[in-house]
């Protein structure tokens, strides 16, 4: 894939004149669209946890669709404008796609919008064939998630291409926009893994293996691509902030289930659990990259980042999970550890008050830690390569 491509020598050598031009409206529009989509997804999950009733016309669905359409249509407009009426500067800052021209990020947004649209009839049929799903991870939802991922990625690339061409002052402003978009990028992974990130799973090897597969990739990408000293930290901070704000605000609204059976008599919107403490490994990623990025090649750097991720993430998430599961202080709106969905039967609620035991015949946990480090290293390696590629994107 493109992430694994080393930049061509001829391209790297090419002189780049920094531009003073302001960031385009399109990049900001797409970032707003991506934000709408991610807030909509969070709201939709919360809606399913509290109210349950699902039609196409729920406000959360509309926000997701509006965000997707905002990104897709604005990108489509830019493509048409650049192709048929674009100035030389605009055409020169674009790439060719089936005879049309637009920045790479715009094409990725259009593609993402197309994937989201494709997922709609697929998901509708899926509900008719197998029943209304209460699962996040299903084939049509995966198509939707890939579309959403593409829109967030498109937003990142549109801003990145400008950052990479911009003069230092504009570059700094764009870098903060990028950090916010990077937060959405991390949030996308986190939401998709919600079903595998329950509190009771946070002392199991599988949880750490899964998180190691995605978050080092995201953090390493941000750490390299965004021209901020604390880039990964800033992206993780945005992720944490968005998740916390949504968690605290949405739960203020009253709600009652409209579907049954109701095992938990919900009176307000139930929101997702406290965000994962990705912020801790993110800080360490930045420290490692600040000190070693210029000195080491990708492979040893990825190995170090993988080990760092596992050690730091486990060091903070493990005791925090203990707190969330066992401490009465964790109950309540601040830490949200009693966010039981309306359909959770009492026997399952009891299971959430302890950690999942290891599966019979499972390997020793230390072996799993080593496996997790290996996974995290591979993930970080891909992230570093992708981050390097992103620093080279000019269009």
């Amino acid at each position, binding site marked *: 894939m493109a992430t694994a*491509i080393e930049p061509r020598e001829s391209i790297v050598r090419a002189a780049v004149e920094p531009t003073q031009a302001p960031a385009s409206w399109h990049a900001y529009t797409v970032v707003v669209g991506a934000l709408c989509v991610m807030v909509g997804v969070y709201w939709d999950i919360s809606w399913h946890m509290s109210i349950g009733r699902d039609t196409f016309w729920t406000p959360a669905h509309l926000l997701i669709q509006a965000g997707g359409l905002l990104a897709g249509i604005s990108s489509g407009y830019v493509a048409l404008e650049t192709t048929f009426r674009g100035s030389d500067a605009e055409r020169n800052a674009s790439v*060719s796609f089936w005879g049309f021209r637009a920045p*790479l990020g715009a094409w990725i947004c259009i593609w993402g919008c197309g*994937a989201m649209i494709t997922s709609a009839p*697929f998901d509708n049929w899926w509900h008719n064939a*197998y029943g209304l799903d209460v699962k996040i991870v299903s084939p049509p939802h*995966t198509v939707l998630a890939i579309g959403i991922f593409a829109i967030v990625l498109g937003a990142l690339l549109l801003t990145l291409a400008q950052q990479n061409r911009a003069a230092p002052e504009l570059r700094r402003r764009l870098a903060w926009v990028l950090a916010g978009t990077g937060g959405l990028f991390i949030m996308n992974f986190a939401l998709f893994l919600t079903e595998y990130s329950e509190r009771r799973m946070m002392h199991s090897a599988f949880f750490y293996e899964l998180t190691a597969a995605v978050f080092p990739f995201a953090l390493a990408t941000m750490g390299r691509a965004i021209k901020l000293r604390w880039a990964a930290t800033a992206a993780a901070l945005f992720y944490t902030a968005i998740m916390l704000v949504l968690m605290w605000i949405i739960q203020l609204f009253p709600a009652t289930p409209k579907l*049954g059976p109701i095992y938990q008599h919900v009176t307000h919107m139930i929101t997702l659990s406290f965000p994962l403490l990705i912020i801790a490994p993110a800080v360490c990623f930045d420290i490692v990259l600040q000190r070693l990025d210029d000195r080491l090649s990708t492979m040893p750097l990825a190995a170090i980042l993988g080990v760092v991720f596992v050690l730091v993430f486990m060091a903070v998430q493990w005791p925090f999970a203990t707190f969330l599961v066992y401490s009465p202080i964790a109950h309540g709106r601040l830490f949200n550890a009693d966010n039981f969905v309306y359909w959770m039967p009492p026997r399952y609620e009891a299971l959430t008050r302890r950690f999942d035991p290891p599966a019979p015949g499972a390997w020793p946990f230390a072996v799993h830690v080593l496996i997790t480090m290996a996974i995290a290293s591979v993930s970080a390696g891909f992230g570093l390569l992708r981050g390097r590629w992103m620093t080279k994107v000019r*269009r």
Partner: protein
Amino acid sequence: MRRLRTVATLLGVAIIASADVGSPNVIFDGNAGPYPVRVVVRPPTVVPGLADVIVRVGAPDVRRVVLRPVYARVGANGAPQGDDAKPVSGQRSVYTGQVWLMVRGAYSVYVSISGARGTGTAIVPVNAFAAGRLGLSRGLGALLALLGVVLLAGLVTIVRAASGESLLPPGQTLDSRSRRHANVTAAIATPVLGLLVLGGAKWWSSVDAQYQRSMYRPPAVDAAVTTAAGDRAAGPGRMLTLSLRDTASYRALLSAVIPDHGKMMHLFLVKDPDLSAFAHLHPIQTDSLTFSTPVPGLPAGRYRVFGDLALENGTTMTVTTSVELPELGVSTPPRDPDDAWAVTPVVTQLWPAASVPIANDRLVMSWAGTATPFHAGEITELRFAVRTRDGAPANLEPYMGMTAHAVVMHHDGSVFVHLHPMGTVSSAAQQVFVLRDRGDTTRAGRVRIDSTPAAMTMPAASEFMLPYEFPKPGRYRIWVQVKAGGVPWTAAFDADVVK
């Protein structure tokens, strides 16, 4: 039903029944407090799914009709507040709505009617099972394939641009080496993306296989007939034993059998293929999965076997098999006084007019319905009158708590349902919900049924009506049973149902 059938035909839905065979729609005729009501529930073929509900209220003073889906394990306390059914324009006193059945198992639709005389609620039990598998229509398949190909081609193009042109500073053009590099990258990406799509298809297949494994099917059942020496005075008897059993993938019964109309099982035997003999028997339960009964009256031959069961979890089911009955030999007396059978080599058409002598020619059962053809997918009132030879109303007695019982079966055996004047619902399943709402439950969810639910008693009028919705066109056999002089009697009719 017509719509459901059309969809089923178009998309290849295989409808497998639960408390019936091939007749999933539920009909209730009764009262919601002071209001006479008829409720039709058309359950979804997948769960979670939407059930269509049609309510016809036989009273003018109705202000509001509310539908609530109530799951048996939690009762009304764990049900949502419900939604208002909307009045149908142009049809007086008819309301429609939809309810979500979210999990598999026993639901009831609680139909609450408010009006000048207060509020009353009717409980209509519905089984929520995955009963159908929707095929992908050719049009939708083509659309998804087209979109998929466009997306894949677009992605390959994006990969090519991402590894080539996008890395160039504005104004520069790709040299041949960079272009070759971008092309190679796109060429590598193509099979990788293809593999990912194949992985997605594999995932879809595994979800589909898992779904098919979890679709409802009645438990496996073995039938055996013995002709052991029975009562010395009666001579050798003919005993039929039904043994339900678990299979590798399916557990026979998820909860205990409870009596319905006072019987642990309602067993029906229908002679194959000419339907010329019929019996409605009531086996005793010898252990949790075994039922046995003497088989009196019927001639030797091959028989279809249908066994209706009500379970403590609120579900109802029909088990089916077939059995070869040997010659009767000396008579086999019935074990249960409500056992009834009939041999009817010649059967008359129900419509437009039919009369069948019963009770040793002392009574006549006649069709008393309207003279219109029966249409599949529409509510049909099967109305009968029982009179003496001189035309006076017969003096009927309740038969297992009901004025009449009836069995409707498509001649090819694809539809089978046990009807009463109250419709297709099981009174035992209704009882489960009443007990649950009263709080007669344990924390684990089992209903504390210490004794059999009291058999319903209702006045045995000489004219009665059985509401039913024929699910598909074809020729149906209808056996109607009433009790007179302490003995149950059976009359058989044929009915042709058109589209």
